[in-house]
């Protein structure tokens, strides 16, 4: 099957149907050479050491020791491949890794023994939860890695701290505990329709790169701290339609810290994301719970849905984000308790360094609960906002029952974060801006689809577009 061709023909058909003036368009059916068949990777024996080639559809692979993809090599993973990692091994990518699952046949990078212990009922004790155990090291890309493409791919139980030997493969110190690291300002990191479950420190650290995170689901990210998508100096791209449940700190963070000479300023557009119960496992004070713009970063944050997170959107003032070049608004906040609504606009007193300016387009309207004479960073009494504007998820109890503390919700489980028909979040979005589209559009080597800004707040559009992970 030639995917490119199918998309082309579907588009053509649509054009044909919608516009009679297009009858005169030429039809083309040109020969495409068959895709290069990269040598298949055998599943006969457990993998370790250098690998290259293709992990085949439907096969189960075992990785029992550190695996390296050397510079210039590419590993493709076909839909439905299941990779079970043992012995706290890691995947070290100096070349490229392209994992192409599908909706029906996702790819799995997991630890089978821990998967059996998975427990996503509320109120799990994180100290005993296998999600935070670090069953394997994760995917560490070196500075030479050009492409990390993950589509319809599950990454689970990663984040085990690096040994010194492992660290030396990718310029990291021993003890580093990310689940995924990307660090090439000219490289491409695409994650679409995928899942990341568990982790120890930052689940995904982007030291720099051109990125696109679309329609993913993140659960239980970070044991005692860590930001789920932590973008540092020299990262450019989009983060949209992602669902975050139970992150230790932020779901999405942008900072220009550590930008290499000559790289482009960190610039991230974040729209239509949903954040649920994030920010409660971070041991450091005032660190955020959904979106942070920090030190010198610029970008956009529109149409995000923030439910019971420890802090609202945080624009950091010292070291300052590039405040002149950050636009935000149309963000929707909901809080069960006074503690939550009192930090919709993070206060100075909370240690979060409040700089976030209330926007007239924010939901609920700030005029409903901020006192006259309020200045950004001030403490305020948010009582009028408590439990107001329930976004009406298809299946998620709001307010959360009393026997579940705010930190007790850490995973999606059986919940459904789509919006009910009468949700006040429907139709409130802002769509007059465009993605940065920093990566190519390509079914294999880029983003399949960069979903444009949506009318409905959050990751799930009532018309079925946006995030596709739902019952």
């Amino acid at each position, binding site marked *: 099957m030639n995917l490119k061709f199918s998309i082309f023909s579907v588009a053509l058909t649509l054009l044909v149907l919608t516009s009679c003036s297009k009858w005169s368009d030429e039809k083309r059916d040109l020969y495409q050479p068959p895709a290069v068949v990269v040598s298949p990777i055998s599943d006969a024996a457990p993998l370790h050491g250098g690998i290259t080639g293709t992990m085949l559809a439907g096969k189960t692979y075992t990785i029992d020791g550190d695996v390296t993809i050397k510079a210039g090599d590419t590993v493709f993973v076909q839909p439905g491949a299941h990779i079970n990692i043992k012995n706290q091994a890691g995947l070290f990518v100096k070349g490229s890794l392209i994992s192409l699952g599908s909706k029906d046949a996702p790819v799995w990078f997991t630890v089978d023994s821990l998967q059996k212990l998975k427990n996503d009922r509320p109120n799990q004790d994180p100290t005993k939860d296998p999600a935070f155990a670090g069953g394997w090291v994760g995917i560490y890309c070196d500075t030479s890695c050009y492409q990390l493409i993950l589509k319809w791919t599950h990454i689970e139980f990663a984040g085990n701290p*690096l040994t*010194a030997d492992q660290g030396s493969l990718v310029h990291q110190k021993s003890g580093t505990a990310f689940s995924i*690291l990307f660090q090439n300002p000219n490289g491409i990191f695409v994650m679409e329709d995928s899942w990341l479950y568990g982790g120890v420190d930052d689940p995904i650290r982007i030291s720099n790169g051109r990125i696109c995170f679309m329609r993913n689901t993140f659960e239980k990210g970070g044991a005692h701290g860590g930001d789920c998508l932590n973008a540092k100096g020299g990262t450019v791209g989009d983060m949209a339609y992602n669902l975050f449940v139970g992150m230790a700190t932020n779901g999405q963070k942008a900072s220009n*810290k550590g930008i290499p000479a000559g790289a482009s300023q960190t610039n991230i557009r974040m729209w239509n994301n949903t954040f649920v119960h994030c920010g409660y496992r971070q*041991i450091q004070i005032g660190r955020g719970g959904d979106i942070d713009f920090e030190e010198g970063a610029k970008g956009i944050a529109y149409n995000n849905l923030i439910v019971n997170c420890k802090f609202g959107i945080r624009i950091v003032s010292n070291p300052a984000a590039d405040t002149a070049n950050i636009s935000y608004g149309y963000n929707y906040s909901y809080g069960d308790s006074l503690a939550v609504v009192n930090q919709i606009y993070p206060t100075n007193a909370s240690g979060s360094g409040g700089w976030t300016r209330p926007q007239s387009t924010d939901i609920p309207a700030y005029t409903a609960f901020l006192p006259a004479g309020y200045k950004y960073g001030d403490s305020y009494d948010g009582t009028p906002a408590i439990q107001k504007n329930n976004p009406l998820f298809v299946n998620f109890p709001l307010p959360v029952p009393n026997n579940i503390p705010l930190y007790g919700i850490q995973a999606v489980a059986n919940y459904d974060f789509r919006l009910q028909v009468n949700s006040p979040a429907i139709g409130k979005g802002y769509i007059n801006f465009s993605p940065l589209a920093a990566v190519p559009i390509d079914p294999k080597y880029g983003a399949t689809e960069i979903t444009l800004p949506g009318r409905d707040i959050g990751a799930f559009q009532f018309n079925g577009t946006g995030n596709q992970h739902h019952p």
Partner: protein
Amino acid sequence: MRHAYPNTLKLLTLILTSFIASATFSQAVLKGKITDAKTGEALAGATVQLDGSHMSVLTNLDGTYLFKQVKPGNYELKVSYEGYKKAEDINIVLQPIATLVRNVALEQNITELSEVNITTAAVSGSDRSARQIEKNAAPIVSVLSAQTMQLLPDLTVGNSLQRISGVSVQRSGSGEARHAIIRGMDQRYNNTLVNGVKVSSPDPRYRSLPLDLFPSEILERLEVVKSGLPSIEGDFVGGSVNMVMKSAPEKFMLQANASTGFSTLFSSSRPFQAYSHSAANAQSPAERMGSSYNATASDFPKGTLNYTNKNLPFNTTAGFTIGGRTHDNKLGVLTSASYQNIYRGDNNTFLMPNAQPQILNLSGGGHLDNQAVISDLYLRNYSTQTARIAVHNKIDYVFNNRNSIALYNMYVHMNEFETRNTYDSVYLNKLTDNLMRSRTLKQSIYNGTLRGDHTLSDVFGLNWTGTYSIAKGAQPDWAEYDYQGANNSYIAQNMTRIWQHNKNQDLAGYLNFLYRPEIAGSKVEFSLGGMYRHRTRDNYQIDYKLTPVTVGGVPQSWTDFNSATYQFKSADAGIESKNINTSNTYTSHENVGAGYLQAKFTLLQKLEVIGGARAEHTLQNYATIAPATSVNRSGTVSYTDLLPSAILRYALTSDQNIRFSYFRSIIRPDFYQIVPTEDIGEEFNIKGNPYLKHTKADNIDLKYEIFPGGSAQFSVGAFYKAIYDPIELGITRDGGPSAQYLTPLNFGTARDYGIEAVFSKYFGMFGVSANYTYTKSKITTTKQYYYKDDVKGATFKTVNQTRPMQGTSPSIGNLSLLYKNPHIGLDLQLAFVYVGERISIVSPYYNLDYWQAPQELLSFSFEKRFCKKFSLYGKVNNLTNQPVRRYIKQSPQQSAAVTLPDQIYSNKTVVGKDIYNMDLQTGVRYKF
């Protein structure tokens, strides 16, 4: 604090005048001057005895003596002075109410000093001998005698060094003078010797010895050699610091001293915070239990981080020296021991700029690029206890006037226990961090040296030296915890425990042949020799990071440290391989072989020429425990250098010289600079560079000097140095933010030049000693510049910046005022040091270097003899309570929201201030 000055001076004047006894009239007066018969220079401190009267005096600093109230009659005058033949049987007839003047010239008892004094100097430890060495030594050398050091308020060699012309000191984190900066060149450009021989350093990074390890009282003299010769090792540019230990005196000697004192910094409101020294494990859990052992929180006992307060801890020092010669003066033995236990403190304020510069938008539009913005205010209290033990022993045996051997043994040991209490408030934020850190540093050096001198015939001679040294440094259980809060509720943060140790060993042999024929009626001395040294170094470091146990799903609230519970990040994170600092764990070797040929001859009777060439071959190798896949995990570097040098000394008169010196020298990179180690830095991690080239330098000196006699002198000189491939830190990118490193790189050619002037003179009992050095140095290195790019937005570019080298102060000066009254046995000294501004830390960012503000240090000391063999002494350091400030040369970023404290400049941002306060020490000395 500046106004405290006049008061202090008044006080001193009072002390001074009260000590000076007034004289009464007498029947007869005898006075005169004692001089060197050959040079005519005045001899200070000579004993003048008037037999028959039981009267005895010591000569003043200008060589004069005076007997008042003498009964008229016949007497015999005796004059003795160490190193000179006694003058006896001088008959004196004193008439009533008359003044008789009688000058005496003494004959020297010694032979000429050799160029580099490794062997016994006949006249040891006196100021006069120091001046003689400066005058007669071939290279340009500055000498501080034991006599001078004894009166100075400095307890360590590190502190004494700042009194020497052209030298300033670089202090350790806890404020101890640790390394020398000579003529604007920091420790990397200098070498450090003990008795003329290189010994291993226990420093984890530098080859240079930590000079606060050596109590100054075990020294006979401290030399700083500023020009090279073929016969001495050629690895210095600024200077070579040589600590010459005491050697056996001709007469039996016994000296002992003990003192006590305190720092005025400590009080019940600012106590000294002490922790249990026995609580720290010498070895890491991995070393104790094996590399596969999975450490848990219980392997990190909390004792190291529990503190008891001492309101006013007392310092103690004790010293003991015994020596003499027996068996017809053939066997000489000297043993010297010193003990010091010192409590010091530092109240430090640190305005920490954010790790990366910022772009500041101006309210009126536009913006400022690359601005340091203060992010944190740290208030740190340091409490440091330093215990030093030093034992030094020298045995020499003179078989006959042609053969002698000498054996030296030295052991120095220092334990430093430092508590650091940090209160960190984050700007624009209600957040505070509270950190407690305990750091134990143990350093020791043993050196054993055997040397022989042989005169084979009238024209042939040889000497040889064999030496072994071992130096150990360790930081066992470096421990820090942290808790963070806002609104008085606190959350436990990470705890860090680090073990680091290193061991260095040197084995070296030296052999020199001398041939002194007479050519065309003048003596020519040829010397030919060589040396070989094998040096090894091991380093080990492991860093454990523990996080607080979270209870259920919530972070752990903080009550106190002993209630806090910790764990590793994940189940097996306690094993060695997840914590060891791989690239900082290495073994390395350095083999240096050298040979030289040198000739010394005199032209036209007045021009002495010494010159020749030296060849040095260096081979350095290292092996880290990084995995086989790591680039540069081990390596070997070798090179050979030819180092020509020449010294011309033209004697204008018997007490005036003009010197010219040229030498080529090299600086070998330190092991940590070439081993691809990775060390945690403030802004960036620091990583070694195996591609580093060694530094070469051309050094030129021109000097005029006059030694009118005694300890008087005047000299003025100029120096110029061109330094090729100097090594400085620069930024390299090796990955993401965590993979951008500061790494040592070679940067073109640096230049260092200046003038140096020294003056000392005594007027009767009063003396003035002063020196001044002006230095300018220039180096161009790459820096990062954060700016707004039209296309890329806020990003960095790499730019060049020319600046002084780290450590160069344009002006350094010393001024000492002395009063020495040998009659009543009183010495007083007021010593003042000025050090101009200098770069203390080179920033990786353009124009954001940390500068140390100009510094003035005033101290006072006295010694008063009583009961003939005893004396009472006292030392007061830092009389004016001078703080030490550091700044960045950028206007302070004041705003309505933030008021930066302690800003006293309009165009500089003060980022750091250390307050040490005054310290006092008083004690008793016994001299047999």
